[in-house]
């Protein structure tokens, strides 16, 4: 068995299915959804990878989330957007806040948490939704697919019952035959063979991959604009994973659905998504077009993730672990949260408040020493100085740092420190045998 879902309780498998949703906000019945957001001037556009075009389906701006009793915010200054037909990856280790960020699209927050910032789905201010409007939003506009399809389906109900319930939720009108016909269509659409027979089956009769298709069919039943896939393929075999990923791509193409793809697997995210955001300790540390992450990761954490991921690439060096452990909610950080594990950390990093530094081209990275890590670091921040004060600040800081440290460039700065931190790659298995 390859299931890894034992440690991840999938609470509220389909959030729209009527489970009690913890929310910090008291529900006020009758409140109207806020009017669609006007396209205000967006100074952070560069940081969020705005490239013009259609109105974003999901637009999160400066989202923060405080939880009483936690030493640090669950989320701090998270901004991301997903456009129609776009696949955006959200990557990070356990506790990095990637699922919490995704659930913000449903206005689902942990009990007692106080969100700040802005979350808009298709122009609607989600944080202002109350009562029936919020329920309708959760039921129809956004659908979420979780890691463990067995936890998403009632084991004593038939697959057909699940789809019928989802269709009723979506306000599908028609008699039983029509509902049944639509359910068969949905199952056929997600590529399940013999869909009419599946309607009468119960979850235990289907494999994990088939069940995930059923859950995706249930998500499509409500015609969502935005699909949140939270480790949706992590418990599946690689071949089944490829099938589900292919299916999600088809869904995106045919329905114009936006897809927020959450995974701990950076290799997968960079191979599958259009853009990838990397999270650490509740903050975005890097945001890049997917291919750029493979070829030119800029934040030390992103580089660390790539270096510690085993690959099939013959040319790749051995896996180099990131020292230490992912931070918990009990860890507070006065400055950059990655300092303790970072091979290039300096004392100043412990006091440096992380902020997104725009990168030439597209994307951003939140690293104090970013300017040193590129060949022409002194100019990169300065190029945006006219429009982005933070970019200018980062550029100036970069110049100052580069002056202080005569060894700029990613290899010179980070590689020796990395070797100190993690002696010896693991791949040297050929000489590992004691004979």
């Amino acid at each position, binding site marked *: 068995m390859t299931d890894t879902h034992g*440690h991840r309780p999938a609470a509220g498998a389909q959030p729209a299915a009527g489970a009690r949703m913890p929310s910090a906000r008291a529900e006020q019945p009758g409140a109207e959804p806020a009017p669609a957001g006007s396209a205000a001037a967006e100074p952070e556009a560069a940081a969020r990878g705005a490239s013009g075009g259609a109105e974003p389906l999901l637009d999160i701006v400066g989202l923060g989330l405080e939880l009483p009793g936690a030493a640090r915010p669950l989320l701090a200054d998270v901004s991301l957007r997903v456009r129609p037909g776009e696949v955006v990856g959200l990557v990070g280790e356990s506790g990095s806040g990637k699922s919490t960020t995704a659930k913000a699209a449903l206005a689902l927050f942990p009990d007692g948490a106080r969100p700040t910032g802005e979350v808009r789905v298709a122009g609607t201010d989600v944080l202002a939704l109350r009562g029936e409007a919020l329920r309708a939003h959760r039921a129809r506009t956004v659908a979420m697919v979780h890691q463990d399809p067995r936890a998403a389906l009632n084991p004593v109900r038939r697959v057909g019952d699940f789809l019928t319930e989802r269709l009723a939720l979506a306000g599908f009108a028609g008699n039983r035959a029509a509902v049944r016909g639509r359910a068969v269509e949905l199952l056929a659409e997600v590529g399940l063979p013999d869909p009419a027979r599946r309607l009468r089956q119960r979850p235990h009769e289907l494999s994990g991959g088939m069940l995930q298709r059923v859950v995706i069919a249930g998500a499509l039943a409500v015609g969502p604009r935005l699909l949140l896939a939270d480790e949706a393929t992590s418990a599946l075999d690689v071949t089944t994973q490829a099938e589900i990923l292919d299916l999600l791509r088809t869904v995106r193409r045919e329905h114009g659905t936006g897809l927020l793809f959450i995974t701990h697997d950076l*290799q997968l995210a*960079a191979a599958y998504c259009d853009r990838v955001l990397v999270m650490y300790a509740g903050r975005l540390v890097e945001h890049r077009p997917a291919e750029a992450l493979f070829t030119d990761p800029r934040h030390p954490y992103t580089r660390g993730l790539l270096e510690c991921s085993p690959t099939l690439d013959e040319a790749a060096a051995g896996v180099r672990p990131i020292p230490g452990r992912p931070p918990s909610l009990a860890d507070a950080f006065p400055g950059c949260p990655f300092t303790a594990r970072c091979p290039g950390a300096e004392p100043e990093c412990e006091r440096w408040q992380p902020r997104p530094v725009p990168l030439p081209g597209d994307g951003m990275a939140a690293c104090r020493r970013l300017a040193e890590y590129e060949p022409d670091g002194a100019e990169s921040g300065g190029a945006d100085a006219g429009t982005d004060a933070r970019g200018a600040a980062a550029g100036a800081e970069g110049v100052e740092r580069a002056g202080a440290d005569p060894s700029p460039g990613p290899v010179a700065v980070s590689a020796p420190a990395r070797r100190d931190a993690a002696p010896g790659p*693991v791949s040297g*298995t050929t000489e590992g045998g*004691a004979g």
Partner: protein
Amino acid sequence: MTAHGPVAGPEAAGGAPPVLTVDALSKTYPLPGGGRLTAADAIGFTVPRGGSLGIVGESGSGKTTVARMLVGLVRPDAGTVTVDGRARPARPARGRAARLARAREIQMVFQDPYVSLDPRLTGRQCLLTALRLHGASGAAAEEKAERLLGQVGLGSREGAARPHALSGGQRQRLAIARALAVEPRVLVLDEAVAALDVSIQAQILQLLGEVRRETGVALVFVSHDLAVVRHITEATLVMRRGTVVEQGPTRSVLAAPVTPYTRALLAAVPRPGWDPAAALRAAAPDTP
């Protein structure tokens, strides 16, 4: 029995006797509607002393059944498991001495250390229990427990903590230390890094490499993850539906797979420029 053995490491060809020899191991389970499911069909391989063998395959391929038969958690229908030239009896060992001797041959590390560790024992107590069971006592046992904790990178704070207070990676380190406590010849790891964060997974892989170099223990590494297997093993066995479809040195199995099934598995691993649809088309000829 050598006819089944892949060349696991350079020593195997040189004539050094393998530490683990598995021959024609078979297991079937009855199916509800009659008939039998073949979970393992005449599986055979050898692992040289200090070598590392990967068993890969999808869910239901029988790789976990094989791992459990090695350890003795599943009784095989047929076939033998030989460690250091001594055949392991298929029946449970009778008597304390026989059980302990059996435990010193092969130890196992499971996927979920939270389930496999006793929640009531601290890390140090967990190790001491295993050590005392195997005859160590007093200061010698205490000293060895400390050495084991250090070997797997756990400090005194972690040694005094119970499993619920440890992170997933720390628990897996403790599970490895407990398995090493009896100085086994073979360590069987069943998806031992699958549930860990990637940075922690890399730490555990590195630890396993160190443990091999220091103790000369042989590894049987069961995993669905071909990339992980590439980094930790010298020989690989690819299983599908209870049978071995391909086996050989890891490098050649992964670089030049012979069977369509192995090729399909490899094509499904995400990489730069990867397209799931193309991977599925490549897999089409011979996959379910």
